[in-house]
């Protein structure tokens, strides 16, 4: 844990910023009789790039908007006023940053599915974008590896490999390739590339001999000391410290910003991960969070206390929108579009958004197209997440009789949609969807939750702010998260297998506020039962023969469901959701109408 300079007991007024690649978002948090509340927010364009080349300009502009809206004086010229007295000053300023492309890393390990995958998890969990994963067995020729390392200009390299006491040959070979490539860092011409070695401890000296002179080498504990255990903490801490010491120090204006903050600046995704883990631990739940931005989509999950994060570096809604088309393919996007559209026209629209990424849909048809693309971006990012959020591979374990019948192999994904309690969405296309039911539909269609799952969106994307605040003052961060951060959309109740379209799916009873609502759904149908924010209801659902609501075919489901701004969504479309080719537009329209998603 990095040292902070603040005593949490004395904090009444907190200001936090997230310096994103395009926008710097500031929020004000104040202590009220009912607890800490987020009270005002301001934003301004980020100023890392020319002509300003000083991140603090954007921060000051965002503060100025906060001052204007809140009436609180935060700045004396270009200096933050400490401490808070009346309507002047603040007690703490904290910040996260993903400006300038975030933290870009290359990771390397000996076996692709073992140490290299652990290294990838360590880097992603620390908030990095992983540019490439090198492994001794990745099928690339040595000269290709060397050329790749030379061409990619990462901010940092994480080198791992081997268990402690095992063979050192392969990890030393990776060090030799790294030395031969002599890579240069992305930012700054006059400093050496930071390299973290977190592999077999017996190879430390040999690695140091090869990389000590050519790189800024830091040695930390092996992230896979034995095959059966990952030890990602020390490598993540080292990444975070080097991020501040080297990467941030090279970015324009960050030296000044670092002198302003009361706690170390965190990479934005690391802060989001921190708050998600805190929430999952406090509430004892499994959760998935997603943040879909213009350039990248981050997915976070906590299952059984295990945290995982992935970043899909080229899946996003503006800069990377065209890549969603390239990766998903046109038919997959078209299946969510509730009208017929010419392929050439759709392609041109997507490219026009890419080259003018700050534009917004003005026509309803354009909104529907963007939301169709968002479903695919989210789906692809989630696929990538499931592939990395896995148990340790290469580990021998005893299997129970029931596991023997289970098809999940060793090292299979730990993301289990039937055990998922909460799905949280954030990012413009979800948080700013004109109707909340649109956000709910995008989340359900992309993630396809099974059984009973609560849905929420981050109101104004303040999870980064709360994540960095949690490092200093967990109580304040938690209170704001519960009161102001999440907007409950409601609960999704979904069948988990497939049935014949039009045949009975399940009957349900919803007991709330002294009344009972009853209904029946056919396979392929979607229905909304209103249930307000803060209300809960007892749901009893009786599936038809062969239909599974998550407890096995034909097993009755009884659960407490929670309301939200959308309500309780009963989903009998089956899993996976199949959009029929014939009558596609009518079907997608019918689903949208069931949730009152668009104006008629």
């Amino acid at each position, binding site marked *: 844990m990095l040292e902070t300079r603040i005593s949490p007991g004395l904090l009444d007024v907190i200001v936090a910023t997230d310096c994103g*690649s395009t*926008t710097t978002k500031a929020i004000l948090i104040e202590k009220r009789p009912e607890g800490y509340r987020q009270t005002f927010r301001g*934003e*301004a*364009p980020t100023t890392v*790039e*020319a*002509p300003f080349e000083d991140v603090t300009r954007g921060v000051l502009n965002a503060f100025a*908007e906060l001052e204007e809206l809140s009436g609180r004086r935060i700045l004396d010229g270009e200096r933050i006023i400490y401490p808070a007295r009346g309507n002047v000053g603040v007690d703490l300023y904290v910040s996260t940053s993903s400006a*300038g*492309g975030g933290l870009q890393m290359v990771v390397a390990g000996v076996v692709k599915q073992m140490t290299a995958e652990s290294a990838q998890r360590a880097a992603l969990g620390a908030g990095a974008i992983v540019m490439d994963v090198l492994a001794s067995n990745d099928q690339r020729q*040595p*000269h290709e590896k*060397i*050329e790749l390392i030379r061409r990619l200009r990462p901010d940092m390299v994480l080198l791992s490999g081997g268990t402690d006491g095992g063979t*050192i*040959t*392969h990890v*030393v*070979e990776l060090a*030799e390739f790294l*030395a*031969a*490539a*002599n890579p240069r860092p992305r930012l700054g011409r006059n400093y050496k590339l930071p390299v973290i070695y977190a592999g077999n401890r017996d190879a430390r000296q*040999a690695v140091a001999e090869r990389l000590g002179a050519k790189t800024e080498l830091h040695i930390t504990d092996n992230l896979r000391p034995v095959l059966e255990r990952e030890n990602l903490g020390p490598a993540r801490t080292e990444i975070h410290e080097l991020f501040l010491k080297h990467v941030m120090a090279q970015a324009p204006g960050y030296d000044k910003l670092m002198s302003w903050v009361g706690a170390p600046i965190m990479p934005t995704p690391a802060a989001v991960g921190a708050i998600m883990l805190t929430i999952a631990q406090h509430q004892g739940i499994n959760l998935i969070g997603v943040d879909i931005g213009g*350039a990248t989509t981050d997915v976070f999950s906590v299952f059984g206390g295990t945290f995982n994060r992935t970043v899909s570096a*080229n899946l996003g809604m503006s*800069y*990377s929108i*065209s*890549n969603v*088309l*390239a*990766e998903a393919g046109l038919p997959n996007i078209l299946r969510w579009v509730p009208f017929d559209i010419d*392929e*050439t*026209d759709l*392609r*041109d*629209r997507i*490219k*026009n958004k*890419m*080259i*003018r*990424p*700050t*534009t*917004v*849909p*003005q*026509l*309803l048809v*354009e*909104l529907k197209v963007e939301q169709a693309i968002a479903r695919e971006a989210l789906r692809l990012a989630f696929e990538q997440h499931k592939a990395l959020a896995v148990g340790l591979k290469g580990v021998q374990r005893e299997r129970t009789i029931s596991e023997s019948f289970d098809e999940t192999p060793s090292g299979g994904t730990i993301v289990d949609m039937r055990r998922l309690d909460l799905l949280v969405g954030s990012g413009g296309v979800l948080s*700013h969807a*004109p*109707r909340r039911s649109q956000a709910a539909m995008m989340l359900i269609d992309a993630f396809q939750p099974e059984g009973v799952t609560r849905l929420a969106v981050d109101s104004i994307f303040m999870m980064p702010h709360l994540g960095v605040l949690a490092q200093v003052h967990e109580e304040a961060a938690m209170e704001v998260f519960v009161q102001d951060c999440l907007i409950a959309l409601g609960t999704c109740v979904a069948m988990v297998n497939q049935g014949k379209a039009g045949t009975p799916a399940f009957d349900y009873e919803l007991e709330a506020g002294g009344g009972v609502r009853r209904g029946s759904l056919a396979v392929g149908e979607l229905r909304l039962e209103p249930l307000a924010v803060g209300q809960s209801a007892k749901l009893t659902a009786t599936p038809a023969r062969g239909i599974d609501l998550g407890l096995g075919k034909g097993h009755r489901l009884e659960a407490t469901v929670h309301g939200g701004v959308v309500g309780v969504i009963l989903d009998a479309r089956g899993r996976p959701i199949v959009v029929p080719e014939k009558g596609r537009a009518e079907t997608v329209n019918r689903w949208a109408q069931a949730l009152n998603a668009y*104006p008629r």
Partner: protein
Amino acid sequence: MAHAYTPGLRVTERATVRKERRLPIAGQVLVEVGAKVQAHDVVARAELPGDVATVNVVNLLDITPAELGQHMLKREGDRVERDEPIAEKHAFIRWLGKTVARSPVAGTIESVSSITGQVLVRTAPRPVELTAYLDGTVVEVLEREGVVVETHGAFVQGIFGVGGETCGEVAVVVDRPDATIGPGTLTDALKGKVVVAGSLVTSEVYERASAIGVAALVCGGFHDRDLRRLLGYDLGVAVTGHEDIRPILIITEGFGPMPIADATFALLKAHAGRRASANGATQIRAGVLRPEIIIPTPQAADAEAKSDIVAVGLTPGSRVRIIREPGFGRIGVVTSLPPGTVRIETESLVRVAEVKFPDGTTATVPRANLEAIES
């Protein structure tokens, strides 16, 4: 946000353009401050480290890494020729001969590892030359790294391009910015030229231009399906410039048929016959880079004052272009900027501008969908 609109593309008759020309690694600068240079002149030179080839000597000789040293015929730093023996092992019984490990490339022994048993051989450095790109004057020398070349002239930014740097004479083959051409319009006389080709270039036109050897095609719009055909893949992220294509492509407005903006077309037409430098490189993320056409003109030397137009927020009277449907490409004048937010068709609440068009009609447009015209 106060400035929720897209700064416009620069289209200007008189600009002072400075280009930093930097070697990928330190090298030798060949010109001095004050030198007059042509676009094709080499201004700096460097040697890129050669490729590395690996030889797994321990496997080839069936020895352990610890024994490697005693079998090596070459040491670190030694020069070797292709197929030259670098290590050998005699058979236990001498007359059975010996096993030899040879270098797969000509170069220098970079390292001999007693842990991995690998020998790395680096090939000879590859020379890289940096051209001036512009007809102009060297105004600064970046010691061992490159130069800054300055020129004065017309400057046009496009919205998106493909392909790297080129130069050639400007030729305009359409009468109007909204005209389109067929392949037959392009003649062999256009070889090596920067050709302005109207509102839409199709695959057929591009292929004809390529066959002729046109240096660059400039157009209002291009279909994405044709871009896919041209590149051979779906372009995912707008980072371009490295494509090895000829002609390079510079799109001034967007995807789909779109007339070239009047100001852009008029400027290019006025400079037909002059030599231009053009670059299709585009990067829309983190440090926006747009494709460009630079046409040096001696009379533009007094352009300093006009060259650094700083984008300011929209104000009533600002000339703007709509950059999203409905009305994509229409040009008008901002008549008012209503305070607060307005609910648009999607039901989103956004900040808007009232825009009046030359035909007298008006529209309410999200400010995010307006591009200021800076000329």
